[in-house]
């Protein structure tokens, strides 16, 4: 990662909207990797640098032929000063995901946050004065990726991933205990047991890779959370924006218990609206659950609509809730303009430290056009970070699982050949490293816990 020359790949156009998308590879093997999947076989070395060529990309075992325009930017005259290949294709998220997957299977690695920019900088391509900007990009992209990851993997796949991880840690605990405490009176795991446990892990991985329930499926679009105090009229606003009775609306504060979602399209961009339960001290179990879900939604949001009850006015509770909002672009919406207003809009804007607020009346529909324009504007101006692709989590998940599977299958082979346990342990450890990279967990801390939980070791 430091001064790596391995080949990284990523979709480098923003998610969601574009009709055309660019998938970019950078590194020593960029040309070789692309060469493996283009049709008709072209000798890329013969393409004139900085010119394009129309090709067809074989995907899904040759079942799909994807037309693409290929650009080659050889080192050192490229952005990263490494060989860069760009594939310009149609912008369908499904297609991009398949394409990226294919490139990773051919030996590329999914680029980390801001990795292209970092390579450009480290290879002296970017001016030193821009170092600060490079760091900001890495930081922001990491945040954006995490946001997407939280939103995407907070589903059953993350539970199954955790289960797989626990299974492997447990197995490693058995194997390592056999090595590190072999002088003690403990029941050791037999190689048959290791083999069957490894087979189980492989089944788990296979089912995760082949799972139809994709992380992020049906979750396309820019995640937009509607937040505010109870009874600010968030659900009415969602209903108005989505044009239907998606959420139950009553005058009773705290009616919304679960997060309600709706997808809308504004100016060709898809927004996924999430109505959150008004955050307030939870009184019962259902409300506590609701509050938890609200936090989850807020944490994965890319854009926030903060709704204030214009009739009641911004309160102290509003100020406190506002202070804890996630660090994403935010549009302040003053609702209930059909009722008498407690303060001028300018005063409210000043209070929240924003340039202006959008005044709407959810029941009457006034100001909704203005709000939609503000939402689209936030994306178009680049304020909303849409560079993190919702399917990146998918691709990353599968990449890690495939690598883990390779280790586990090597371990199985070792176990059946009665090879040393230290070698099996090495493979399991590497499989865990791959999974840990997804979840950000360090395997070794948990290993000792797992050993001491299971075994009475120590003299």
């Amino acid at each position: 990662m430091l001064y790596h020359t391995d080949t990284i790949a990523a979709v480098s156009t923003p998610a969601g909207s574009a009709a055309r998308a660019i998938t970019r590879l950078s590194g020593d093997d960029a040309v070789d990797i692309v060469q493996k999947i283009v049709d008709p076989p072209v000798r890329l070395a013969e393409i004139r640098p900085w010119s394009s060529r129309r090709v067809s990309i074989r995907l899904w075992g040759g079942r799909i032929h994807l037309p693409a325009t290929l650009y080659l930017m050889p080192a050192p005259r490229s952005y990263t000063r490494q060989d860069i290949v760009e594939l310009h294709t149609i912008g369908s998220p499904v297609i991009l995901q398949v394409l990226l997957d294919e490139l990773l299977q051919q030996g590329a690695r999914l680029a980390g946050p801001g990795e292209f920019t970092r390579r450009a900088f480290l290879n002296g391509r970017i001016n030193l004065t821009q170092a600060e900007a490079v760091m900001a990009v890495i930081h922001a992209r990491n945040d954006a990726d995490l946001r997407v990851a939280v939103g995407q993997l907070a589903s059953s796949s993350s539970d199954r991933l955790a289960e797989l991880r626990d299974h492997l840690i447990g197995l490693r605990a058995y194997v390592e205990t056999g090595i590190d405490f072999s002088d003690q009176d403990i029941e050791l795991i037999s190689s048959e047991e290791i083999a069957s446990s490894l087979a189980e892990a492989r089944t788990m991985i296979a089912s995760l890779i082949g799972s139809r329930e994709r992380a992020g499926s049906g979750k396309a679009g820019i995640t937009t959370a509607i937040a505010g105090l109870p009874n600010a009229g968030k659900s009415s606003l969602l209903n108005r924006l989505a044009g239907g009775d998606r959420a139950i609306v009553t005058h009773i504060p705290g009616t919304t218990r679960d997060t309600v979602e709706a997808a809308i399209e504004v100016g060709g961009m898809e927004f996924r609206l999430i109505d959150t339960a008004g955050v307030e001290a939870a009184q019962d179990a259902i409300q506590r659950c609701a509050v938890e879900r609200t936090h989850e939604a807020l944490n994965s949001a890319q854009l926030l609509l903060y709704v204030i009850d214009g009739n009641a006015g911004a309160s102290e509770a509003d100020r406190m809730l506002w202070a804890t909002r996630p660090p994403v672009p935010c549009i302040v919406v003053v609702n209930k303009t059909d009722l008498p207003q407690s303060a001028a809009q300018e005063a409210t804007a000043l209070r929240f430290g924003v340039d202006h607020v959008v005044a709407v009346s959810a029941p009457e529909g006034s100001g909704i056009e203005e709000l939609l324009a503000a939402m689209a504007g936030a994306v178009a101006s680049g304020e909303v970070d849409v560079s993190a692709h919702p399917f990146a989590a998918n691709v990353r998940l599968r990449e890690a699982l495939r690598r883990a599977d390779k280790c586990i299958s090597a371990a199985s082979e070792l176990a059946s050949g009665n090879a040393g346990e230290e070698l099996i342990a090495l493979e399991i450890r590497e499989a865990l490293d791959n999974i840990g990279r997804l979840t950000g967990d360090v395997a070794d801390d948990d290993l000792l816990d797992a050993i001491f939980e299971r075994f009475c070791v120590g003299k």
Partner: protein
Amino acid sequence: MFTNYSALAGLKPQPVRLRRGFIPWPLRGQLLPTLRRHFIPMAHYPRSQTYDVIVVGAGHAGCEAALAAARMGSPTLLLTISIEAVGRMSCNPAIGGLAKGQLVREIDALGGEMAKVADATAIQFRMLNRSRGPAVHSPRCQSDRLLYAAEMRRRVELQPGLDLRQEMVEELIVEGRRVPSRSGGVARSSIAWTWSEHGQRKAVDRGTRRVLGVRTASGLEYRAGAVILTTGTFLRGLIHLGTLSYPGGRAGEFPAEKLPRQFKGLGIDTGRLKTGTPPRLNGTTLDFSKMEIQYGDPDPVPFSFSTKKLDRPELPCYITWTSPETHRIINDNLHRAPLFSGRIKGVGPRYCPSIEVKIVNFPDKLRHQLFIEPEGAGTSEVYVNGLATSIPPDVQLSVVRSIPGLEKAHITRFGYAIEYDFVPPTQTRANLESKQVGYLFLAGQINGTSGYEEAAAQGLMAGINAALKLRDDEPFILDRSEAYIGVLIDDLVTLGTEEPYRMFTSRAEYRLVLRQDNADRRLMHHGHRFGLISDEQFDELQEKERLIAETCDYIGRKFHGGASLAKVLRRPESSFADIEKIDDELRRRSLPKDVKQQVEIETKYRGYIERQNRDVENFRRFESRRIPEDIDYAAVGHISREGREKLARVRPVNLGQAGRISGVSPADVSVLIVYLESLSHNAGR
């Protein structure tokens, strides 16, 4: 040559031993009297003695530290509360074991003493994990406890340039002020100055205080360039035995009370840990016929690469088990066990639990294994390994007598638990120097470890680093891919520890290359570089390397029946002896045993070793990217808040270490890479 007889002769000022270029403190004071007076009152000089290095504590860490420093040419003073306790094994009479055996081999390769003393005083050798691959083979020996301590003391006494004295250190003499800046860095205003041996002014570690020596209970002051603290369990040691608690450093020894109090004033945090030890019995009162006998290996392998022949009488160990009655007695008396009554607050090691903890935490386990280990040839006392406890003496006696073979046992010493202060090691640098006080080194249990081997390894590293620092040389830091010692120290200073830290082979990422059999090949060049390994021994290693390379080359080229000898050797069932059988030329070479062993391991493990070496290469890329010591993390934009706090606290020395700190994300490391790069560009302009 000086031996310590002169040191023992009395308290009158000793002639100061001179290293070439070394100017004793009093002279330096005369050269620069006005400036010096600012921080060292002249009045102290007549009463004080001057050394390069003072080591406080003569346990396993202290002895290694003192020997290494003295051998590297630094006149050294080793102070101990009790001169009888030099090199004492306070816990079980054994050296080595799983992962620990690897440490001992590494200590030996670097020129430490533990392996040689163990070889000279062992009563039984065993290579553990023999049924598994060579990467996890671990040597272990039973030692004659009294002989071990006597042998270590003898070696300390015979070492030229090393004085041993019985003194209790009460206080560190420290100069300089520390003014931390808000970001965790150090403000410029706190630069302290000192004088080099040639009378030139030079900056002491920016902004840190510096230790100048120690004051002892007898009212004496000793001045030194560096001080190494290896105080074991003696810092505010508190012994627990049933419902009784009393201050003590070990059973029957004084604790050190004043030093920990001074730490607070120096800004050094302390924590509390606990450890325990089992009762000892009179072996003549035991019925060994009811126990299983355990002998050592028939072909013992010595610890030290320099030991050619082992010439020691062997004594067996015995194995017995707790009975249902044992469990009943302990369960009935838990209210009197300090571990369960809330009396003990320190955290004990999970891998070395007391018998009461084992019985409570694992009620399904009907019996626990106990090893009866002889304490030595000169005594009938035995050690009951596996029965560590702090329950009251009367319960200890009933517990012991409920065990098959011990029905009539006489307890010679009761087991006890001890709580003690340690210095959470994230406050320590990778060269084992304190971050708060310059030239103050910490090694052993004071850093939160447990075990003789872990202590000795740190002591050796601290001794080497103190000597290096005094000559303004680069610190000696082993990384995680070079040695278990590297893993040990990196874990401590990067992650800290919450329980007494013990080495496990699973802690080493590069376990397949960090083997006990190749410790000499990995580390001896360092030991030789520091003068701790003799030229003869190093030449021997060179010859061994030559033979290994030659043989590896030969078996790769020589074919037998369509397959190279290397390929034949790689088959799971074949060994070096098998290829010797089919190749006359190879047999004629009659290679030494250790050469054959290395060739066999390297050939069989080859794929894996290459894979680990690739990982190591990748690892070193990060490890070699140094982070400037005066980096101000507040000035680095775009790092997560948690990452910034942790980085400012641990102050990692390189990017690899930064990435291992929990709470520092890969993105934070990325940002740091860019920041460092822009710094070095700026500096280059």
